[in-house]
């Protein structure tokens, strides 16, 4: 039971990090129609930006804010400079994925070229530890969970109650129709890139905090978890991504406690393949 509770705690933290990342990824895909595989690379770029700030002797939490802003701007530029021109030219979805894979290499290995190939860590205090039964969580981990819940609530409020959120949903459902109804879809898409880019930066820094040490290629595997969470809930579905993140986060960490940790990604991977093969629209997506 102790081992279960301990792994449950890890699972909660992983699920929290994953939820932030997956919501960003799924909104990005849903609204802008770009399956942006460079998402993981932008995440790690954010983590390194926070590292640079942190190295200058500033708190990592200030670094987090800087990373969020930088990734928001970076994502808007990535869209305006690369993806939109390709889409405007009528590139097929598969071409877009190949372009995003090319961008993955460019961003990820530019980071590696600058940062070197070694692992780094933030200089920060984990704060006091809370124990309840076998459940052990540090103050920092509580902050990560809190941030994630804040993001989930914020997403809910945005999509359900604001005009911007409704415009985003309309654009995701049918871009042409949305434009004909007077929604400025170009603007909505740019704002979406900024918002999801911010989430991507946030996810990158909390991922790095959670991981302890990280290098430039650290998100290669985490992207698998993101994709699994996104496809489990249904691509483009924000609530699906939340559900997927909780399921995948808990499943990987709890299974890691019972089988060896080396194979904890296997569950996420199997979930992803089964969803792709059986129900590509996801648990919360419309059936075909």
């Amino acid at each position, binding site marked *: 039971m102790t081992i279960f509770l301990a792994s449950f705690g890890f699972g909660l933290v992983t699920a929290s990090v994953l939820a932030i990342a997956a919501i960003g990824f799924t909104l990005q895909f849903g609204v802008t129609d770009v399956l942006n595989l460079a998402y993981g690379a932008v995440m790690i770029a954010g983590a390194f930006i926070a590292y640079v700030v942190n190295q200058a002797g500033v708190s990592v939490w200030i670094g987090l804010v800087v990373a969020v802003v930088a990734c928001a701007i970076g994502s808007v530029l990535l869209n305006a400079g690369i993806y939109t021109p390709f889409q405007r030219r009528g590139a097929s979805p598969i071409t877009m994925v*190949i372009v995003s*894979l*090319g961008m993955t290499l460019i961003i990820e290995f530019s980071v590696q070229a600058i940062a070197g190939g070694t692992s780094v860590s933030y200089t920060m205090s984990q704060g006091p530890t809370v124990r309840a039964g076998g459940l052990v969580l540090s103050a920092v981990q509580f902050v990560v969970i809190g941030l994630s819940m804040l993001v989930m609530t914020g997403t809910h409020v945005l999509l359900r109650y604001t005009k911007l959120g409704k415009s985003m949903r309309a654009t995701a459902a049918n871009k042409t129709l949305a434009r004909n109804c007077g929604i400025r879809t170009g603007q909505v898409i740019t704002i979406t890139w900024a918002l999801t880019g911010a989430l991507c930066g946030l996810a990158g820094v909390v991922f790095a905090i959670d991981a302890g040490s990280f290098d430039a290629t650290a998100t*290669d595997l985490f992207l*698998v978890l993101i994709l699994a969470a996104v496809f489990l809930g249904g691509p483009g579905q924000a609530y699906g991504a939340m559900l997927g993140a909780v399921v995948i986060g808990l499943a990987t960490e709890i299974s890691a406690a019972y089988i060896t940790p080396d194979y904890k*990604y296997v569950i996420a991977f199997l979930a992803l393949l089964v969803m*792709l093969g059986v129900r590509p629209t996801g648990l919360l997506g419309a059936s075909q």
Partner: protein
Amino acid sequence: MNSYYVINLLIYAAVDAMACLGLNQQFGVAGVTNFGFIIFQAAGGYAAAILALPNQSANGGFQSYIGGWNLPFPLPWIGAAVVGGLIALPFTFLVGRRLRGDFAAVGLLVTAVLLNLLATNYKPLLDGDAGLSLIPAPLKGQGQFTLQSSGYQWAFTAGAVVLCAVTYLFVRRITASPYGRSLRAMRDNDLVADSLGKNLLAQRSAMLVTGGAIAGLSGGILVSYISTWSPAAWGYAETVVLFAAVIIGGAGNHLGAILGAVLVPVGFEEVTRYIPTSNSLPPNLIPSLEWVAIGLLIVAFLWVRPQGILPERKRVIKAAGLPPPGPASDANGSATTASQEPVASRSQPDGETILQVVGVSREFGGVRAVADVSFSVRRGTMTGLIGPNGAGKSTLLAMVAGTLPVTSGQIFYQGRDVTRLPAYRRARLGVVRTFQLASEFKRLTVMENLLSAVPGNRGDSFRGALAGRRYWRGDEAAAVARAQAMLVRFGLDGHANSYAGDLSGGQRRLVEIMRALMAEPRVLLLDEPMAGVHPILARRIGDELTALCADGLTVLMVEHELAIMDEYCDPVVAMAEGAVLAQGTMAELRSRSEVVEAYLVG
């Protein structure tokens, strides 16, 4: 420049070129984006290794692996190809009709990442992270060859180059055949290829297995040469390098794939060899920048020259000795019979029901696009389907063709329940549709578009393609003659060898109708065939269809132009809000207030 250097270069070039040929066959020709391609090369490498290695205890016992059969050459290489092909089978479930191509690509990418992780961490199977080493070279110590002698090295090189050449001839044979044309049609528009009778799952699976076998063989050759194989050699990003090579060389062009292999994987290896190493540079800088350069090359090429350095070759088909329209000459006997379309027998009396729709509904997320529709179509009629936008006409047509599954209800064709049959099976039975949106195969010529629809070509199967041109050229000549006659009839013979994507909107419509007719339909489902077509041409299409209906063809046609309905269609079915309002001649429909109402309101 010593001979070792040249040998090394040639072997790497041969191995990379083979891998690129396999990937090009999948991606460039058939449009199957396999982001997990490297898995198959890895599998071939491991297979060759454990087949050639002696039992693990006999090998010093410092590495653990399964197998170790110590088999003589060429069994390890054959095994590599077989394993590479077999390992593709579990992935075929990803490439069926159901899954978007980009989602399937993501699935394969993730598989590559995960399998690499597993191979790294699980030691008993293939020695984990450390990988296999001391893999015996082929024919080691046999005959007059001794390892490391330059004669042996040159012989190995020659073997690798010859196998690469054989691979080139093999993929070229497939691509040049009618089957290759079907693959390219699927690449250009899979939904349309499906509706013309192409089995997408079978075609894509065949390409996964073929490409997998080629990749496996290339992996087998590679490990025999370098004598080691470990997970570090086949990271997911290696697939991206091969994609870069194919895109830069020219997707769809096999010589382009070879050129790309020489320029990208081999070229990068050679160029970085000459960059001086310096202690003042941070570690990992050069390899990192190499990856950045590969990414930049991909994005830049897709932007500046998406067709690659050597673009796909246009396949010009000359219709030699084409028979004049009308009674066919006896220059080509088989063409004569083939040009009598449609195949529907004339002896059968008109008027019997050929198509029956019973209580068919279709829902999209709670909205009923088509609600409980029933009607029947009689043989030899040209039935019209009218109604305001959103009445559910196109949805209904798609359900009859099988492109869209029904939510409920049944569809009978010639008395047989076809509700559960996939579109390609219905097309083979004679139910062929056209599409509302332009749906030509863009990178096929007009002639190829027409030929792609011809059923029963002996060369339109994997085996037929391998049997070679002599096996299928008779069928092909007959099909070309038929297509040429069709082009003459519709006045498009001047454009036979133009890319369909370069035609005007009206001409593309025409290509689509001709292509559907080439499929020898008994029931032809037309979705707004006259939209955007010049009135004179529209009349010509209408007259041709009327003549074909007199010969037994049945047409069900959605059209907004009521003048066309007036002239050609009887009966006409009027739909509104997903339901059938009325059925009768146009004159009858005009007299019914609810029909007029629906049109005015809609």
